[in-house]
């Protein structure tokens, strides 16, 4: 699965020259979780990340290209950590997930459904994170994620390391997930406009997969995400082979189709 590979590379380029704090995944350092969504009210809140006039982005990229990943799960923090932040701040959470490269029988085009389901399951983790004192508001429609951090959580010295570990633990519950790289951004030195553009592209990829998955009747000539659908369909052919030709053999992708489609490097 290489749909997001070029995107992962482009996003990483946005952080060139900025040194992050790095943490390796440690299951024992997860933040305590609530059993259900916890609403943190303004009166209990220390500050909000990514809300009001502050920038916010949420982006999840999935790949089976092991070369893009270290052999360890890791948490990267660009900017101040939770206890260092004093007031409202811009915020982005980027998740890169390495999945198994065995979507089953390659001769079966219906494995596209499996791919769709895997991406969906990974993306939907964000709707089920109930970390204590760290209330996540997330919009899949707008690729936004905002966070309210409670005063009590700060007293308990909550950090992105704790939150990141909780996320990774949850992602790793999925048997298809091999590695996770989670990036928290609170610095204004990163180009949020470009990040947002990448997040929008990720949404378009999901929409395209959804259309193909659901077989929705679409007037392709006027569809705004036709390029992405073509690309995903192209990937299916490349990945699973051409059904029409009776050739289901996997073909090597020389250059990312996303790069080709958008003319980006």
């Amino acid at each position: 699965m290489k749909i997001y590979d070029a995107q992962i590379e482009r996003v990483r380029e946005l952080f060139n020259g900025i040194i992050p704090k790095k943490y390796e995944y440690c299951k024992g350092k997860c933040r305590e979780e609530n059993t259900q969504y916890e609403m943190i009210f303004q009166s209990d809140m220390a500050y909000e990340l990514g809300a009001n006039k502050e920038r916010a982005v949420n982006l999840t990229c999935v790949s089976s290209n092991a070369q893009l990943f270290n052999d360890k799960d890791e948490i990267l923090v660009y900017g101040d950590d939770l206890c260092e932040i004093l007031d409202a701040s811009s915020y982005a959470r980027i998740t890169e997930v390495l999945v198994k490269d065995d979507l089953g029988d390659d001769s079966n085009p219906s494995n596209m459904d499996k791919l769709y389901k895997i991406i969906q399951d990974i993306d939907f983790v964000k709707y089920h994170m109930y970390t204590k004192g760290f209330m996540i508001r997330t919009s899949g429609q707008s690729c936004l994620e905002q966070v309210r951090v409670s005063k009590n959580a700060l007293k308990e010295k909550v950090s992105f390391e704790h939150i990141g570990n909780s996320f990774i633990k949850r992602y790793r519950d999925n048997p298809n997930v091999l590695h996770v790289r989670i990036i928290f951004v609170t610095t204004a030195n990163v180009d949020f406009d470009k990040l947002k553009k990448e997040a929008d592209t990720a949404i378009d990829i999901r929409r395209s997969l959804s259309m193909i998955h659901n077989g929705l009747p679409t007037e392709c000539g006027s569809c705004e995400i036709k390029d992405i659908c073509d690309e995903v369909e192209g990937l299916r052919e490349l990945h699973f082979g051409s059904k029409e030709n009776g050739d289901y053999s996997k073909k090597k992708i020389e250059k990312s189709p996303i790069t080709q489609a958008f003319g980006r490097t």
Partner: protein
Amino acid sequence: MAKIIALAGKGGVGKTTLCSAFVRILGEKYPKAKILAIDADPAVGLSTALGVTVNQTLDDIRREIIDKAASGAGKEAVELLGEVRFRIFDALVETDKFAFLAIGRPEGAGCYCAVNAYLKEVIDMVSRDFDYVVIDGEAGIEQINRRVMEKVTHLFLVTDASRKGIKVVKTIRKVADELVMYEKCVAIVNRVEDMSIVPFIKIEGTDIASIIESDSEHAHNDIMGKTIFELSEDAPVLAGARKALDSFGGCL
């Protein structure tokens, strides 16, 4: 588990005033409690009574979420629920005493079913996060009929001293007995101009928790643009609302 208090009755009997009084009284009695006031009346009066400014309503966010889902973005159930969770804060007005949510008024003519159905889901969802949810219901029986108030735990049926008002209360009670999972249901007779008629006020099958005389102080307060929080402690409407809440004993 939140106590969900709703007020229903004929239009013009003072539901909104009593609702705002309940919010004030509960806030004073339980200063640490999380209280949510929901203006479920398209007439939109509760915000004025409580002194909050509404920028977005439930109907606004409902339409935006549906528009985006129609364009193909995020229309799985979990995504839609996530969007509601996300957007609800845009419509939620938070003060140091309570939070406030307005159902809003759909633009143009047409039926109100969609927003009522949405309101029901929102009540289910947000009530977990609050200790008290106080709902100023739409006049009449529509929201009871449509099970919007299904999860209400404490139902107050409000009437004036008119036969018509009492008839509406009886009708609502009958339907509520079938469609609302309430623990307690009582009536409040409000805006009584002539207290000499009190012995003659009877509502068959429903206990009257409080009879409140017409409150000139409140009328003055209202016309001067003041909120319920600026009303004196012993104003008849506050005293009557306190008595109605006390009628539920320790359960509120």
